[in-house]
């Protein structure tokens, strides 16, 4: 037979377990969700929805497509802006390290609102217009992005090392800052080299 103190311990243990069981639903709601690293993702996929087959050799009037995607892992809903820009090889890219965006104007802007864990994806269709060649110089006059035609007027010199006229379509990710109530560059961008060739 157990001693009275042993029974007392058993009763106390039962009491403790009972209190815990009664409080579980409340504690579950009170406990903050397990937090991880917060970040946003920006990606571009080829026409086959894979990280391959990106348009590279492009010509005037041809229609090209990549998929753009944004993922929200910030722990709450986020308002993103996705800016599509175009440059030649002498113009600067954004600087992800210093958080500086490109000073070039956005040719097309997606506005995306995503909940935590949400992913947005859309096809980015583009074509180069008013393309010209003169010896070792090429020019692109206009760019059509998803039906929005903009004057770009870029010039590229023939690159002897890589044998081509190179331009770049790049996409910057911007995020709405709730504290400052303004949109700021999120230090993320993806880019796509284009070798502009003459169409025959």
């Amino acid at each position, binding site marked *: 037979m157990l001693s*009275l103190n042993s*029974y*007392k311990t058993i*009763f106390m243990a*039962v*009491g403790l377990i*009972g*209190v815990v069981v*009664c*409080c579980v*639903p*409340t504690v579950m*709601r009170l406990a903050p969700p397990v937090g991880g690293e917060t970040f946003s993702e920006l990606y571009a996929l080829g026409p086959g929805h894979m990280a391959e087959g990106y348009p590279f050799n492009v010509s005037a009037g041809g229609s090209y497509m990549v998929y753009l995607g944004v993922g929200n892992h910030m722990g*709450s*809903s986020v*308002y993103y802006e996705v800016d599509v820009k175009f440059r030649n090889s002498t113009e600067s890219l954004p600087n992800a390290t210093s958080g500086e965006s490109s000073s070039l104007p956005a040719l*097309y*802007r*997606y*506005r*995306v*609102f*995503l*909940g935590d864990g*949400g992913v*947005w994806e859309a096809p980015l269709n583009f074509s180069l217009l008013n393309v010209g060649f003169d010896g070792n110089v090429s020019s692109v006059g206009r760019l059509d992005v998803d039906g*929005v035609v903009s004057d770009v007027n870029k010039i590229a010199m023939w690159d002897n090392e890589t044998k081509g006229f190179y331009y770049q379509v790049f996409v910057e990710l911007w995020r*709405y800052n*709730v504290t400052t*109530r303004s949109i700021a560059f999120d230090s993320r961008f993806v880019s796509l080299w284009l070798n502009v060739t003459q169409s025959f």
Partner: protein
Amino acid sequence: MRFWVNVLVISLLIVCIVFFVHTAFAVTYQEAADQVAEADQTLRNAFNGVLDAEKNGANVSALLPRLTEAGSALTWAEEALRIGNYSDAVNRAGTCKSLASSVAGDAVALKIDAVAASGNWWIMVLFSVAASVVFLGVLFFVWRWFRRGYLKKMLGIRPEVTS
């Protein structure tokens, strides 16, 4: 002769109507730009409202695609403004504002529901405390009853003498 005079008068009337109506409803760049800026601000305010509702525990997942739709309307309004189609810019800015305002209204309603639900949370806390107190009280009485029986039983045991 009279027929041709009538035709001339009616033609002049139509030309005047077309000219003056167009002038009266023409949208200037500044008006369109103001509407687009207002739509941008409305969209941001709507998102702030959605975030506020979310912080209060509301499920805002249904509101976000509508905001994206409003954002798309704003992008096209900006494009229309850029290419000089001011009336289209105003129309699209109006669509954006309408969508964003509707989302803002729904966000407020969701926030009210969420705040009411957090009131239920306090009821749950009270229920947990009350249930714990009742459980401990019952356990205490059971313990007292058990201890009395235990001691009675122990006192009733006769010592056994062994040789």
